[in-house]
């Protein structure tokens, strides 16, 4: 990589140990991904917040570096493990709560905006087309590249943190013009958000850094988020380009059979004890639609609904929160379905969800059964 004099000096440790560590991460990442230089970024979005995912090692690392480290650019943050407003309703031990609050404190000390959201693209203003950012959180990186005209690598938690501290990121392939060598042709008729989640999961398995995708109808937010979440879970791929692509692209169909394979991999049971909605977290549009669908109906079992705090505040003002609570929903902000410590196999055998991303982590990490259904079906089957 070509580094400036200042970057070379930082890499040697002349700006302190933490900045040296950040440059070591960025340069190693850059070398691995054929970046010829570092480019300035305007916004970093960090993952590695939930104590359930980063553990004591992560908590201690953040606590230690936050003594000196400060972010150089606007930096936002992924969900943590619980909503402080109602954590007492859940069976979480004191150690979890205090470690989680330590993590929150470390990020705030470093100057990070405590947004606790995996949908930064929906709750913050999007900068002008082509702006360089560094998003960890796989669904957000894919959304930023594919739908928001931003440029980001599919950052790791550490490369995004290093980028936030330095204000730069490697100029890897996703930041440059790319021409995917694969085109996925969507063939499934009448897709819902679950179909798009499975399409994303399928695409992530076969795509490299980006894929072309054709045959899509107009998609709503729930569907685009499901597709980004699905792809982020299964692959290294971090961009959809819409269309057939070049004639020499390998064409691969996503039809009923391919969809069934994804379904069979992630759906392990036909019935859940509880329902979770929000992986990625729900935005205001989705909350509004959900409140509409639940008019005059109530869930017959627990239903956890995850959203960013800003969305919860807006929902409360508009009256959606009251409507959802009346219908039996548990409203949770600042956290998410993924690796939630609030869902444990000690008290839950299986979860019903419309999220492919949520399904993957519930199954593999929480160790619970998963029953996949689109939202419309969940409401039909689980409410009266």
């Amino acid at each position, binding site marked *: 990589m070509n580094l400036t004099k200042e970057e070379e000096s930082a890499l040697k440790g002349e700006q302190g140990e933490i900045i040296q560590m950040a440059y070591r991460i960025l340069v190693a990442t850059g070398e691995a991904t054929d970046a010829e230089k570092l480019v300035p970024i305007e916004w970093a979005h960090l993952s590695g917040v939930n104590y359930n995912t*980063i553990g004591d090692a992560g908590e201690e690392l953040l606590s230690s570096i936050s003594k000196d480290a400060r972010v150089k650019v606007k930096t936002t943050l992924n969900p943590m493990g619980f909503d402080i407003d109602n954590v007492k309703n859940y069976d979480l031990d004191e150690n979890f709560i205090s470690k989680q609050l330590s993590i929150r404190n470390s990020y705030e000390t470093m100057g990070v905006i405590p947004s606790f959201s995996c949908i930064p693209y929906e709750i913050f203003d999007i900068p002008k087309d082509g702006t360089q950012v560094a998003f960890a959180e796989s669904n957000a990186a894919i959304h930023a590249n594919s739908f928001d005209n931003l440029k980001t690598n599919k950052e790791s938690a550490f490369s995004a943190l290093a980028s936030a501290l330095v204000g730069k990121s490697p100029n890897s392939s996703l930041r440059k013009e790319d021409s995917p060598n694969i085109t996925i042709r969507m063939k499934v008729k009448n897709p819902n958000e679950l179909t798009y989640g499975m399409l994303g999961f399928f695409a992530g398995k076969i795509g490299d850094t980006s894929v072309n995708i054709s045959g899509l109808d107009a998609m709503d937010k729930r569907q685009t988020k499901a597709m980004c979440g699905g792809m982020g*879970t299964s*692959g290294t791929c971090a961009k959809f380009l819409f269309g057939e692509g070049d004639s020499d692209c390998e064409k691969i169909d996503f039809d009923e059979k391919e969809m069934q394979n994804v379904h069979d991999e992630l759906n392990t049971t036909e019935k859940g004890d509880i329902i979770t909605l929000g992986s990625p977290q729900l935005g205001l549009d989705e909350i509004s639609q959900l409140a509409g669908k639940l008019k005059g109906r109530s869930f017959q079992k627990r239903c956890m609904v995850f959203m960013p705090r800003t969305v919860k505040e807006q929902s409360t003002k508009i009256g959606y929160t009251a409507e959802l609570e009346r219908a039996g929903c548990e409203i949770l902000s600042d956290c998410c379905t993924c690796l939630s410590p609030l869902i444990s196999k000690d008290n839950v055998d299986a979860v019903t969800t419309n999220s492919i991303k949520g399904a993957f982590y519930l199954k593999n990490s929480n160790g619970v059964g998963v029953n996949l259904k689109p939202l419309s079906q969940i409401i039909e089957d689980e409410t009266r």
Partner: protein
Amino acid sequence: MKKILVSGKVEGVVLKSDNPINFLGTVDKKTGIISDENHDLYKKSIKDTVLVFPSGVGSSVGAYTIYSIKSNESAPLAMICKKWILL
């Protein structure tokens, strides 16, 4: 093309996988054991192995899993993969 991202010298037994690894959620951060039943290393531990696999996939937080298994002394001795990963 061969690239060395983190250099060092170790000797150990190769544990080879044909499946990519999503470190978050499928690798236990204390023990290094794989929990994904669809993975060819299901129930195997990557601790103290020379782990050879196609690539990392999925969550960006897998980076913290790798950091955790290293802190918990359950990390592989070395990792060799085909495709670049940002972990």
